[in-house]
C-alpha cells in the first residue's frame, strides 16, 4: 500500500494529463446517456468561459463582472453573420473572437485606470448596457427579446456536428486548445507581465511594463476567448436571446473563477463543476436516494418498520430536487460567504495566489517567533 501510494505520488504530471484526456475521450461510453453528455457539453462551454475570464480576473487581477457581454458579442456576431449572410459557423468563429476583442479594447481603454471594486462596478454597467442593447433590437439586427433563431450547426469536410455526442467532441477539442493556450500564456512574457502588474502596478511600471497596454491585452484576449465560447454556444442551441447574457451569468462566471481558485487552471474546472454540474447532480437526488435506499433495504428490511423512513427520505430528496431552482441562489450565496471566510483562495488555488492572500497571516506567527530571540 505504502509503496503504491508513493508510486502514485511520483508519477509524472504528464501521466495524469494523459489519463484525464483518455477519461474525457471515453466519457460518453461510460455514461451512455444523452442527457449527461449534454451536461458535459454545457460544462465544456462554461469551462472555456471560466478560463477566458480567468485571464482578466486571475492573471491580470482585474475584477470583471460583465464578462457575459463579451460572450454575447461573440454569440450575436456569429448569429447575425450566419443567419443574414450565410457565413459558415466555423468561419464566424475567428470573426467573433476579433469583434469581441475590439469591443473589449474600446470599452476597457477608458476604465482601466480604475482599481478593484470601482472597475468591478463599471464592468457590471457595461454588461447591462450590452444586454439592454440586444434587448432593444437596434436597427432590427438583434431580434429583440426573441433573439435570433435558425443558426446553423457547424460543419466541415461534409461532417455536420448536430448530435450531443458529436458536440461533446467538438467542445472537447476547443477546450483542449484553450487549455494549451492558457498554459502557454501563463508562462509567457505577457503572462509574467500580468503577474507583476497584479502584484504591484507601480513597481511593474518602473520596470518598463506598459501597464495600460498589458491590462488592455488581458481584456482583449479574455474577450476573444469568450467570443469563441459565444460562437460555440450559438451553434449548439441554434437560438440565442438576450436573457442568456444576463448579469446572473456574469456572476456565475466570476464565481467559477473565484470559487475554483483564481488564476489556477484546475481550479476553473473545480469551479465549473461546482457552479454548473452540481446543480444538475442535485436534480438527480431522488434517483441517487433510491439507489442508496435500495442498498440498505436488504439489511434493514429485516428489522421492519423501514418503509416509513424510506418514504420520508424519498420525499425529502424529491422536494430538494424539485426546489433546486428556488434554492440555488441561496445555496450559492451561502457557499460564497463560507468560502470567503474559510478559503478565500478558492478550492484548488494557484500556489502564487494562495501566498498573496495568506501572506500576512502566515508571516505574522513567523515574526512573533523571531521576536522571541
Amino acid at each position, binding site marked *: 500500500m505504502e509503496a503504491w501510494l508513493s508510486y502514485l505520488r511520483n508519477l509524472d504530471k504528464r501521466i495524469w494529463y494523459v489519463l484525464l484526456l483518455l477519461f474525457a475521450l471515453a466519457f460518453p461510453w461510460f455514461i451512455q446517456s444523452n442527457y449527461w453528455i449534454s451536461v458535459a457539453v454545457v460544462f465544456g462551454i462554461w469551462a472555456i468561459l471560466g478560463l477566458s475570464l480567468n485571464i482578466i480576473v486571475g492573471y491580470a487581477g482585474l475584477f470583471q463582472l460583465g464578462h457575459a457581454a463579451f460572450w454575447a458579442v461573440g454569440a450575436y456576431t456569429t448569429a447575425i453573420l450566419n443567419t443574414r449572410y450565410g457565413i459558415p459557423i466555423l468561419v464566424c468563429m475567428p470573426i467573433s473572437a476579433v469583434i469581441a476583442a475590439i469591443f473589449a479594447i474600446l470599452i476597457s481603454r477608458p476604465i482601466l485606470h480604475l482599481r478593484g471594486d470601482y472597475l468591478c462596478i463599471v464592468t457590471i454597467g457595461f454588461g447591462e448596457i450590452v444586454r439592454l442593447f440586444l434587448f432593444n433590437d437596434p436597427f432590427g439586427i438583434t431580434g429583440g427579446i426573441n433573439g435570433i433563431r435558425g443558426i446553423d450547426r457547424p460543419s466541415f469536410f461534409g461532417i455536420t456536428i448536430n448530435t450531443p455526442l458529436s458536440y461533446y467532441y467538438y467542445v472537447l477539442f476547443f477546450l483542449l486548445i484553450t487549455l494549451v493556450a492558457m498554459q502557454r500564456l501563463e508562462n509567457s512574457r505577457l503572462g509574467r507581465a500580468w503577474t507583476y502588474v497584479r*502584484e504591484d502596478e507601480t513597481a511593474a511600471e518602473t520596470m518598463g511594463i506598459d501597464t495600460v497596454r498589458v491590462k488592455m491585452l488581458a481584456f482583449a484576449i479574455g474577450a476573444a476567448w469568450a467570443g469563441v465560447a459565444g460562437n460555440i454556444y450559438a451553434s449548439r442551441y441554434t437560438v440565442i436571446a438576450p436573457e442568456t447574457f444576463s448579469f446572473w451569468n456574469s456572476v456565475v462566471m466570476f464565481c467559477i473563477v473565484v470559487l475554483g481558485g483564481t488564476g489556477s487552471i484546475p481550479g476553473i474546472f473545480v469551479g465549473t463543476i461546482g457552479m454548473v454540474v452540481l446543480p444538475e447532480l442535485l436534480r438527480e437526488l431522488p434517483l441517487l436516494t433510491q439507489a442508496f435506499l435500495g442498498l440498505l433495504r436488504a439489511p434493514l428490511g429485516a428489522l421492519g418498520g423501514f418503509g416509513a423512513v424510506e418514504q420520508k427520505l424519498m420525499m425529502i430528496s424529491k422536494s430538494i430536487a424539485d426546489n433546486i431552482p428556488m434554492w440555488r441562489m441561496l445555496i450559492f450565496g451561502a457557499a460564497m460567504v463560507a468560502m470567503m471566510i474559510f478559503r478565500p483562495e478558492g478550492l484548488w488555488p494557484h500556489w502564487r495566489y494562495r501566498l498573496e492572500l495568506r501572506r500576512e497571516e502566515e508571516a505574522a506567527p513567523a515574526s512573533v517567533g523571531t521576536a522571541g530571540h
Partner: protein
Amino acid sequence: MALLELQNVHTYYGYVHALKGISITVEEGEIVTLIGANGAGKTTTLRTISGLIRPKEGKIFFEGKLLNNVPAHKIVYMGISHAPEGRKVFPTLTVEENLNMGAYSLGNDKEAIEANRERVFRLFPRLKERRKQLAGTLSGGEQQMLAIGRALMSRPKLLMLDEPSLGLAPMLVRAIFETIREINEQGVTILLVEQNARAALKLAHRGYVLETGRIVLSGTAQELMEDERVRKAYLGER
C-alpha cells in the same frame, strides 16, 4: 552636458505643492545624494524623474532629451532605473524571477539577461545562494539587495535608489553602501535619496539638501559635511 538635469521642477499631489521649483544636475559617473527630513520631497523628486508623477512646471532632461511627457515604462528603456522606497520586491516570486522582471525591458535577449544576472550575483553573492527562494522569505537586508539588483537588471545608466538604508542594521547599511560604491565604479551614475545623511555624504560626490520642497543647500559632499547647518540639522551635532 549633464546626464540628468532638472530645471525648476514643480510637482503637485492634488492640491499639495510637493516640489516647489527643484533644480538638480547629475553628471555622468557621479554619486549624487538628496538629503532631507521626512516630507522634504526626496521621494517625490525620484518619482517625478521616473515618470510616476508628472511635473506641472519645469523641465527634466536626460542625456539632453526632454522627459516630461515620456511615460514611466518608456523611461526605463532610456536608461533610468528606480529602486523604489520600501524595497517593493515581489514576495511571491523567487529571487530569480524578481531579477528577471527587472530585465523586462531587455525583451527576450536571454544572453544579455543571463549576463546581467551574473553581474548582480557577483555584487550580491547572497542572492545567488537564494536564487530559488521566494523573495518574501528573505531578510530585510537581502530584500534591499534584491531591489537594487533588480534595478540593475535593465543595465541602467542612471540608478535611482530611494532610502536603501531604511530599516537595516548599521552593519548591513555599511555593506549595502559599499556595494553602491562598487556599482558606481563600474560606471553607473547614482542618484541616492537618504535620511541617513552621514552615510550618504560619505559615499556621495555631491549632494543637495531639501527642505519642504525646496533645495536649501548644495555642494560637494565634503562642503556639506563641513557646513554648520547640515551638521546641526542632519548629522546630529551641536
